[in-house]
């Protein structure tokens, strides 16, 4: 068991945590913006997105802008709750260490 109670395995990677940080405060964000914000490679980002998708923390939204497809990502309620719990767990850990 992790020392910090309530930590979410799905957020072990900083990239995944980063993706969720951006998606909880924005309605939907496209791939390019995520890539620029997080400063990661296409492949790296894609694999982390896939794993977040698998646990239903985010959903993919494909739109057509003219002839081009534009892929955006939206955090699900479940994903937002999981993110919130994770942050709270870190905060509680930091608080208990501050005593």
């Amino acid at each position, binding site marked *: 068991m*992790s020392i910090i109670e309530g930590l979410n395995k799905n957020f072990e990677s900083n990239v995944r945590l980063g993706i969720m940080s*951006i998606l909880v*405060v*924005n309605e939907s*964000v496209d791939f390019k*913006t995520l890539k620029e914000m997080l400063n990661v490679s296409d492949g790296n980002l894609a694999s982390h997105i896939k794993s977040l998708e698998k646990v239903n923390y985010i959903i993919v939204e494909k739109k057509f802008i003219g002839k081009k497809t534009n892929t955006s990502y939206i955090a699900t309620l479940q994903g937002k709750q999981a993110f919130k719990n994770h942050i709270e767990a*870190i*905060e509680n850990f930091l608080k208990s260490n501050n005593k």
Partner: protein
Amino acid sequence: MDVNKNLNDIAEIKELMNKSSRFISLSGLSGVFAGIFALAGAVLVFFRFMEFFSSRISADLYNFELLKGEELKDFITFSIIIGIAVFISAVLTGLFFTLRKAKRNNQKIWDLSVKKLLINLFIPLITGGVFIFALLYHGIIYLIAPTTLVFYGLALINASKFTFRDVRFLGISEVILGLISMFFVGYGIFFWALGFGVLHIIYGISMYIKYDRK
């Protein structure tokens, strides 16, 4: 589990949340210069119609004569020209300082947050513009200055969700000032100078110190 790593993570998360949803390239200097131009504009209008304004200062609060006829027409035209000049200079210098800040911090100037910021700014602003046009149309000149302050304040409050929180408090200050000035007819120019001039300069300097100076 180490404390520092977690502190770092939290700081990073916070930064990502802010950067992705708020426009943080807005420079405090934009506000300072907008305020300086507004004050300069107010001074020009004041000196052009000094006779009226000085009589207004010495007159009884509710017993006075407003501008009429040719003089009023002259006042309206002059004020509109000054207003437009102030607006254009403020937007241009604002853009200059904001672009400079974005460049320094390696941030994109045109992203989702700017788009949201502008849309939310312009909805109350355009509403206010039409409202003021209606006042002009009906000849209710004395409520125009207070109305600009109120709608500008509401526009700032609305847009503040997508930039620094300070903008929200600036907006609230403008609205309060505008509402007060509605009851002091004929003093519009002074409230205008206070709201668009002094408040911009104060908030601009405070934002510059908080976010720009590093």
